[in-house]
């Protein structure tokens, strides 16, 4: 009898559970399925299954002209729409060697940083919500709405602006853009202290995030991790510093690096980055030069035959655009190296050995956007 009981106990102990998290799960913030192998409640292996929102953007690009492609890039990482537009615009401008007016460079930089703030605000809300702190969700969305109002006033769109065009901008900024942006910065400098008060110092939050899901610097390089996730492991990879574009060489700001590499560090990097973004905006907002809001471009844009690669720093990491052109008005091959797709790869590595409840915290701290992964 005892033998039977013992063997049953052993059976239970060695049994692995395979659990599907997603595709419709609140913590994946989109349609992503994670097949998780569990031993008890310890995660042993994790395989992502993507493609639930795969739209074939790269295939569509092969049939579209470059100004049309910009509208598709909005739909990849819809929380960094401005930065995605920026990547394609930079590629076209640098390939054609177009000199963009200074005014455009300043406005683009300000818009990028506002977009980064909005994205990190949403991260703050959703990440805290995943961990059970519902109030933070309201805080994040309340303040993000102010940024979206500024976008809407100048660009006409709240989230998918398609504001940048090759050579410049779709239209000039609204006359009250500078006033409203300065008012927002003043407002948000007060509110970000609230963020720290309600969440950063919270003991439960710290216990759930500190020493959880540690990503080493070596692993970050090996897996091609970029953005705030990599900077939380002490890897200096900010494109704004290493390959400055637009007006980033005219401003002084810190690249936020934290060596710990745990979930809490990834959260703190984004909190600091919001402050750095506000510093950047403050340096530029009063000095926007007068001039045209767009360079003169030919009505049909054709890139010279060849290969091009351009990258920008989005709110999630390096967005690279690789184009093979055969001299036509549409690219022969267009590849988006999206930050979400590369960062997703490391999830298996950093979750194994942690509990399934920690998986939600770790996954939230990577700040993945599913349309960015699937494209």
């Amino acid at each position: 009898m005892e033998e039977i009981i013992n063997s049953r106990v052993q059976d239970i102990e060695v049994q692995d559970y395979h659990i599907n998290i997603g595709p419709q799960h609140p913590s994946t913030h989109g349609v992503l399925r994670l097949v998780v192998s569990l031993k008890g409640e310890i995660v042993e292996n994790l395989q992502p299954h993507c493609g639930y929102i795969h739209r074939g953007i790269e295939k569509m690009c092969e049939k579209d002209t470059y100004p049309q492609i910009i509208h598709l890039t909005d739909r990849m990482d819809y929380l960094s729409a401005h930065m995605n537009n920026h990547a394609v615009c930079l590629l076209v401008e640098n390939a054609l060697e177009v000199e963009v007016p200074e005014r455009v460079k300043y406005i683009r930089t300000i818009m990028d940083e506002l977009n980064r703030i909005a994205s990190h605000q949403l991260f703050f809300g959703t990440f805290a919500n995943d961990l059970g702190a519902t109030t933070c969700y309201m805080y994040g969305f309340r303040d993000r709405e102010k940024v979206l109002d500024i976008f809407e006033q100048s660009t006409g769109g709240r989230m998918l602006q398609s504001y940048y065009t090759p050579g410049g901008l779709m239209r000039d900024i609204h006359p009250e853009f500078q006033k409203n942006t300065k008012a927002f910065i003043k407002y948000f400098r007060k509110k970000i202290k609230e963020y720290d008060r309600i969440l950063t110092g919270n003991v439960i939050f710290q216990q759930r995030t500190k020493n959880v899901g540690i990503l080493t610097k070596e692993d970050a390089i090996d897996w091609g991790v970029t953005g705030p996730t990599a900077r939380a492991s002490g890897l200096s990879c900010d494109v704004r510093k290493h390959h400055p574009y637009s007006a980033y060489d005219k401003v002084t700001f810190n690249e936020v690096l934290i060596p710990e590499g745990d979930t809490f560090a990834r959260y703190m990097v984004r909190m600091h980055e919001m402050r750095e973004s506000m510093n950047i905006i403050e340096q530029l907002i009063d000095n926007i030069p007068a001039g045209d809001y767009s360079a003169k471009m030919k009505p049909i844009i054709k890139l010279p035959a060849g290969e091009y690669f351009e990258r920008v720093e989005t709110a999630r990491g390096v967005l690279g655009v690789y184009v093979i052109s055969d001299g036509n008005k549409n690219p022969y091959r267009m590849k988006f190296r999206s930050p979400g797709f590369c960062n997703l790869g490391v999830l298996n590595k950093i979750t194994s050995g942690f509990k399934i409840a920690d998986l939600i915290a770790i996954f939230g701290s990577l700040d993945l956007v599913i349309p960015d992964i699937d494209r």
Partner: protein
Amino acid sequence: MSDCFFLFRPESKYYKMDREKLKEKVLGLVPGLQSEETRDFTAVTVAADNLHALALQLKNDPDLLFDSLLCLSGVDWGKELGVVYLFESTKQKHMLEVKVKTTDREKPCFDTLSDIWSGAILHEMEVFDLFGIFFKGHPDMRRIFLAEDWVGYPLRKDYVDEVNIVEL
């Protein structure tokens, strides 16, 4: 809070090779390399048999140290199918493009690089899914985006789908 916060400092002990020296160095690594220049980087084309050996040396050579796989993209050149790798060194900041091509459109196959750069795992799955290029030695070669029973490889130039692709 401020103690975890430090400034951007370029690592000065490493130096960035200029493109001529880099090209010379890389061309000496394995036989049969062809090089071409693009605006942003030097590109070399390697035979499929030498790909893995070249990749190992690119990563481990103390002058090169290409430790980061920046971009991995499948390309259909018409007659040839192939993969384009973009490498970058996080220490020395230089970039290199490596191309590998095959004329076999039925069963194209290359060595996996996922044992050298782990980041290649997901990228190679994507290329397998959309171009039908198989990577020998890959730990998990499955369709990552499309359904398991999907017929054809959509990013190939000869792919036909009268239902889902609308020609304007």
